[in-house]
């Protein structure tokens, strides 16, 4: 099945992004992106000081993925300066360019070309200045490490030309970007700039930021989702040390104290009476039934041929349903923010993914004009989507507004696990048909999903938890659940239907890949099921349906090679002949993120203990294509992280809840993969395409993992698991079922 957008169309659209950025407003101000925008001066993007140090006012932020380093590489490359002289100011609404939120693996992909172009324009401007100064034609000048040289040996540095002064020139489209053949920084291993600080305790984490006179705050959430505040007994904390103050706004309750441990003690001691909600959450065992009867909006995403007729006339048909649970971000550091309301202005230090969007929503929440809110991004604990970072900023802002003092709030572990927006549960129903020639002739895909975003947007107070607790409405758009619902396989009769649930059992938002890992779980499991039905090797069967897609074919061929794949149908017949206790198998999955961007082909090896059902993953092989590679080791670090984190989601993770709310509120009730469970090796082959654009690599590999594990389990055991997470109990149950 192909997407409506061809690769060629996409590349055109990609070029369009560059045009668009010149037209988009530049964001010195808090002004939202409306009205006729001024063209952006180079000075909005970068400055060079008298020492030749380059400051880049980057709208994208470091979430732990290494983009600070990669973006600096891009600028150093196009500007022709030494890498260490480039520094990024990220995500400050008063200083950085609004490049949109840092989401969806779009940092290098969309933000990178913008920085490259700004740097190239700056270089062109500097060359013109140097030509004048040295009285030599610009074409004859050479630049190295920020020093311009003429053929006669005369030199002038960038610092001498523009140090501390403004370029006073608009970023246009005159400058040509460097050809990849001339790269000396991009594409080379670059040690990450943040790691030395992180391992010595000197990195400037948000969590370590303090203001003079700052108070410590904690929040107390309702004892059930939807419960209403009946009474707060402030006297219950009056005698506690630390000048404890209680702040109540609707159902939002917070405490502040002078010391952090005092605020924690006060939050625990505060007596509150809640009125239970009229109806609680459904029982967990009723989740699927609840989702199937929840009112939905139906979207026909793609359709071709006559699916019903093709299913009817198919030589063989299969049906299957795949389920994925609510899952949590599980950042190791609970979300944190520092806020200061002063003279009618709010400044928030936050690890948000979208400083500008957050500023707009905070303005609504606090009743301030948008221009009176500044969000200054600082790096937090690892961010894998919309966790509590925005919500805690709202908490800190409300407390600071109430007390006219700077307030720092860090969520407790139970706040983060209990109340961060969750990656939502999904259900996929699939029907497929094989023709007599063992090709797929029909594919009918139906996905049931709530939206995967409740991020701050459109100034809606209800997109922040504290706003919701005050009865403010959220503004939600249906998004993310359809991501990678279509496949890239060629199937003559296909139909992809998305049923967007109007309600989510738990507050839902973006978690790494949004709906892509879940949809790919269904697609790549089902194609494996069809391959098994056809008696075909899983890789060969996929290749048969990818004719002409050379990049996909190359990836599958590469992963077949590096994993030592022996072509044969699944399940393996050999392991069951072995009388030993361990069943071994391998499974493959392929995905192109959003059907258009970075791609990964992954082979997972599993070992299953026949007696206990215990699953282990000794080895994973990845072939990866994200177009032009910027920092190969940084990329490998990302790919390894994608694999390990998603293995954790595949094997262990499920948010549990009762009628009142989330019950998996710590690392015991929401376990993640530990060192003893990590693969021995992740074997990576990077396929570089310098002729192509850069695609973000934060998610493509993660997308494949559920399916690759399920396919490997099937290969090893002959049983097909269709619900994430895959547990030892599932394996034992299905093995027993198969025997019976």
């Amino acid at each position, binding site marked *: 099945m192909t997407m409506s957008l061809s690769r060629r169309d996409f590349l055109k659209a990609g070029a369009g992004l560059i045009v668009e950025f010149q037209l988009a407003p530049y964001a010195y101000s808090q002004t939202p992106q409306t009205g006729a925008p001024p063209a952006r001066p180079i000075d909005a993007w970068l400055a060079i000081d008298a020492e030749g140090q380059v400051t880049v006012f980057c709208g994208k932020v470091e979430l732990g993925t290494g983009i600070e380093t990669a973006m600096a590489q891009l600028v150093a490359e196009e500007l022709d300066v030494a890498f260490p002289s480039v520094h990024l100011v990220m995500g400050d609404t008063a200083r950085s360019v609004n490049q949109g939120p840092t989401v969806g693996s779009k940092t290098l992909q969309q933000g990178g070309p913008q920085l490259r172009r700004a740097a190239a324009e700056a270089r062109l401007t500097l060359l013109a200045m140097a030509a004048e100064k040295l009285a030599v034609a610009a074409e004859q000048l050479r630049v190295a490490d920020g020093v311009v040289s003429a053929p006669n040996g005369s030199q002038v540095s960038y610092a001498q030309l523009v140090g501390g002064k403004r370029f006073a020139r608009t970023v246009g489209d005159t400058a040509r970007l460097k050809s990849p053949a001339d790269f000396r920084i991009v594409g080379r291993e670059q040690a990450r700039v943040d790691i030395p600080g*992180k391992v*010595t305790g000197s990195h400037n984490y948000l969590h370590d930021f303090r203001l003079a006179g700052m108070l410590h705050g904690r929040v107390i959430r309702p004892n059930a989702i939807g419960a209403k505040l009946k009474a707060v007994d402030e006297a219950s904390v009056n005698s506690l*040390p630390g000048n404890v103050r209680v702040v109540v706004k609707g159902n939002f309750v917070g405490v502040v104290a002078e010391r952090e441990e005092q605020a924690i003690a006060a939050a625990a001691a505060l007596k509150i009476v809640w009125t239970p909600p009229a109806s609680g959450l459904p029982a967990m065992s009723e989740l699927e039934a609840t989702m199937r009867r929840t009112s939905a909006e139906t979207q026909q995403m793609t359709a071709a041929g006559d699916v019903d007729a093709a299913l009817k006339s198919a030589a063989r048909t299969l049906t299957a349903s795949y389920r994925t649970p609510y899952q949590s971000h599980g*950042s*190791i550091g609970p979300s944190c923010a520092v806020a200061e309301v002063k003279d009618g202005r709010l400044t928030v230090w936050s690890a948000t993914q979208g400083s500008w969007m957050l500023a707009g929503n905070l303005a609504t929440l606090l009743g301030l004009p948008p221009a009176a809110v500044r969000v200054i991004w600082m790096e937090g604990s690892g961010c894998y989507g919309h966790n509590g970072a925005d919500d805690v900023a709202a908490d800190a802002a409300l407390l600071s507004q109430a007390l006219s003092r700077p307030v720092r709030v860090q969520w407790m572990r139970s706040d983060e696990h209990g109340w961060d927006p969750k990656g939502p549960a999904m259900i996929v129903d699939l029907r497929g048909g094989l023709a007599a020639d063992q090709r797929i002739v029909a594919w009918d895909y139906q996905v049931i999903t709530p939206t995967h975003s409740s991020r701050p947007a459109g100034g809606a107070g209800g997109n922040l938890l504290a706003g919701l607790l005050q009865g403010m409405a959220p503004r939600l758009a249906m998004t993310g659940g359809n991501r990678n619902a279509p496949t890239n396989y060629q199937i003559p009769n296909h139909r992809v239907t998305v049923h967007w649930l109007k309600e989510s059992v738990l507050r839902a938002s973006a978690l790494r890949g949004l709906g892509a890992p879940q949809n790919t779980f269904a697609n790549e499991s089902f194609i494996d099921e069809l391959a098994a039905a056809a008696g075909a090797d899983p890789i060969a069967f996929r290749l048969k349906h990818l004719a002409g897609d050379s990049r996909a074919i190359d990836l599958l061929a590469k992963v077949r090679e590096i994993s030592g794949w022996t072509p044969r149908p699944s399940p393996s017949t050999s392991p069951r002949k072995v009388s030993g206790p361990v069943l071994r198998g391998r499974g493959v999955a392929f995905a192109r993120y959003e059907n258009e961007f970075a791609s990964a082909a992954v082979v997972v090896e599993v070992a299953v203990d026949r007696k206990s059902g215990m699953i282990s993953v000794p080895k994973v092989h990845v072939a990866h294509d994200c177009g032009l590679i910027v920092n190969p080791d940084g990329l490998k670090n990302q790919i*390894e992280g994608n694999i390990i984190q998603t293995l*954790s989601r595949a094997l262990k993770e499920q948010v549990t809840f009762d009628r009142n709310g989330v019950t998996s509120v710590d690392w015991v009730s929401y376990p*993640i*993969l530990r*060192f003893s469970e990590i693969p021995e090796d992740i074997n990576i082959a990077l396929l570089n395409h310098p002729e192509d654009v850069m695609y973000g690599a934060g998610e493509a590999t993660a997308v494949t993992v559920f399916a690759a594990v399920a396919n490997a389990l099937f290969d090893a055991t002959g049983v097909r698991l269709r619900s994430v997470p895959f547990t030892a109990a599932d394996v034992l149950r299905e093995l027993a079922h198969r025997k019976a």
Partner: protein
Amino acid sequence: MALKEVELLVNGERRQIAAEGDTPLLYALRNDLKYNGAKFGCGLAQCGACTVLIDGQPVRSCVTPIAGLAGRQITTLEGLGTREKPHPVQRAFIELQAAQCGYCSNGMIMATVALLAANPKPGDAEIRSALEGHLCRCGTHLRIIRAVRRAATLLAQEKQS
């Protein structure tokens, strides 16, 4: 209510702080002494992000009250080395780029220092076992394991020279 003065011996220095005796060491280190290396992760001794060494042993500072620590040698991440002069374990983590967000790095490094002091040549299983109680969410485990092996080599070289 007046807070008591408590003396702590941190990274070789005697420091006075005014806090209740049941204050977890983590907050005293971070908020009073501005040693930010140890991080709050769970407050439940489940994740390891707050690990410090007390008399050389790894301890979860989020559940360790400051009362009773008088005279004990507390070592934080900052007490190992600096950006300019990193400890061999820190150097190994930099060389092998064994971090993403780095929020868990403190615990990983402190646990490694303690492991290598007790067992200078740990095998793979011993490394995994020593770090089992430390959670990483970014998925840098394999790099961390390699960094521990590298740190063992660096420490051995340091001893020889």
